[in-house]
């Protein structure tokens, strides 16, 4: 009697292969997205940590920090309008350092020296800068992982030295941040005019040389944005640095351009030469390289992903802390 060789039939093999193929078909797209999903979670966690830091700061000091302090690049402002005699271009992020476990970095920072020399419109000149901004360069050039979105591969520094964006005539810009305070974009020009020009219903939580507290967020903390995500590459202007204010580096205005605006002006021929997917058209605008929108930190400490197709009224109402409008679902 011949012994039967034990083996699979062709049909059995084909069935097994077919099942494996179906499983791969289910898993493959998920694997492709897994890394980006992990980066998105990390980005969300960064904002969450910043939210906890802001609330701890508020518990300690009874106010939120200002977004930037005593900026020198303004056209309206200066000493005649009640501005400081010496400008510092300091940043609210510096004040948050002890609350994101960077107390050692905070101790290195000298508050008697300016953070940068940026001056543009003539209200101040470099002779009005307080102390020597080069002293604090070692602090503001420090890259803080908590302030970087892992999905954003762009430059972490502004690499040349000029009067607009650098720390001083000899040192380039400080380390950038992917997250910045919600503030009115007009502060690049109107420093001390901001809260006189803006109706109280149009104000954002943060402002230059001005602190607010939770009680002032009359729309409710869960209906108001504190920090908005941005991209470290911008066509018109330069992305913000965390350690110092620079011309146009004063915060993010969520009520200004729609999220992820790649074209400066309308989508017409005169503007298309500068359109680039993944590069924000304008400074102080919200965006991210997570496809389809960007993260915001709300006043209650929650982090939300806003779709780039969000209703304009909702986006504007999120930015303003006391507009009095019903926010609705988003």
């Amino acid at each position: 009697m011949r012994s039967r060789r034990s083996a699979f039939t062709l049909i059995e093999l084909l069935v097994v292969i077919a099942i494996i193929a179906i499983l791969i078909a289910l898993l493959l797209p998920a694997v492709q997205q897994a890394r980006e999903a992990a980066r998105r979670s990390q980005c969300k966690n960064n904002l969450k940590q910043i939210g906890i830091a802001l609330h701890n700061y508020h518990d300690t000091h009874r106010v939120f920090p200002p977004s930037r302090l005593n900026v020198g690049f303004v056209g309206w402002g200066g000493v005649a309008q009640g501005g400081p005699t010496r400008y510092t271009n300091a940043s609210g992020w510096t004040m948050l350092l002890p609350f994101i476990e960077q107390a050692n970095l905070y101790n290195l920072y000298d508050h008697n020296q300016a953070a940068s020399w940026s001056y543009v419109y003539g209200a101040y000149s470099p002779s009005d800068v307080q102390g020597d901004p080069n002293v604090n360069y070692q602090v503001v050039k420090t890259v803080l992982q908590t302030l970087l979105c892992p999905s954003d591969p762009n430059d972490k520094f502004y690499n040349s030295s000029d009067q607009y964006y650098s720390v001083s005539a000899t040192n380039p810009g400080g380390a950038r941040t992917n997250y910045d305070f919600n503030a009115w974009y007009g502060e690049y020009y109107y420093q001390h005019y901001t809260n006189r020009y803006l109706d109280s219903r149009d104000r954002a939580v943060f402002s230059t040389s001005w602190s607010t507290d939770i009680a002032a967020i009359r729309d409710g903390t869960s209906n108001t944005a504190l920090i908005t995500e941005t991209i470290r590459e911008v066509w018109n202007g330069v992305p913000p640095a965390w350690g110092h204010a620079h011309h146009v580096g004063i915060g993010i205005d969520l009520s200004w351009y729609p999220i992820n605006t790649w074209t400066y002006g309308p989508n017409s021929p005169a503007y298309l030469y500068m359109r680039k997917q993944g590069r924000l058209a304008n400074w102080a605008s919200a965006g991210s390289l997570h496809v389809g929108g960007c993260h915001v930190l709300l006043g209650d400490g929650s982090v939300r992903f806003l779709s780039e197709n969000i209703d304009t009224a909702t986006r504007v109402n999120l930015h303003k802390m006391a507009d009095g409008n019903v926010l609705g679902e988003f």
Partner: protein
Amino acid sequence: MIVRFFSLSVILIGLAAGCGGGIEKAPVAGAVPVTGTVTLDGKPVGGCRIIYFPTLSSQGDGASGTTDSAGKYELTSLLGNETAIGAPPGSYKVVISRMLRPDGTALPPDSQEPPMMSGARESIPIKYSDFNATQLSATVASSGGTFDFEIKSK
């Protein structure tokens, strides 16, 4: 043979997974000529960028133009991939912008230098130059039209 079958199925599945559908942009209605004049405090002002932003009821991506020294402008827009004179009929939010360098000279409207790299700032009041704050609007009829904007610096 089985190896071949397996690799073929993997390739086919890979191809199927890689095929995402792009969304085709719907063609918009034809543009009609739109011209006009911009005056600041009664005087024609050159070198302004005038931008028509479409509102929900109008089609297309908006249109833009530049004023000459007599303050006159003519809109151009983008329909599909073609450049068109004018703008599709509909209602628009209008923004007028004129960027000045720190030394007071105007940034040429056709400059490909980003305005903020030269330290330029807006010289038109915010109620005309800001997308959110603008009080200017235009409703383009199917025959086109002339829209003059008399803006004031105060």
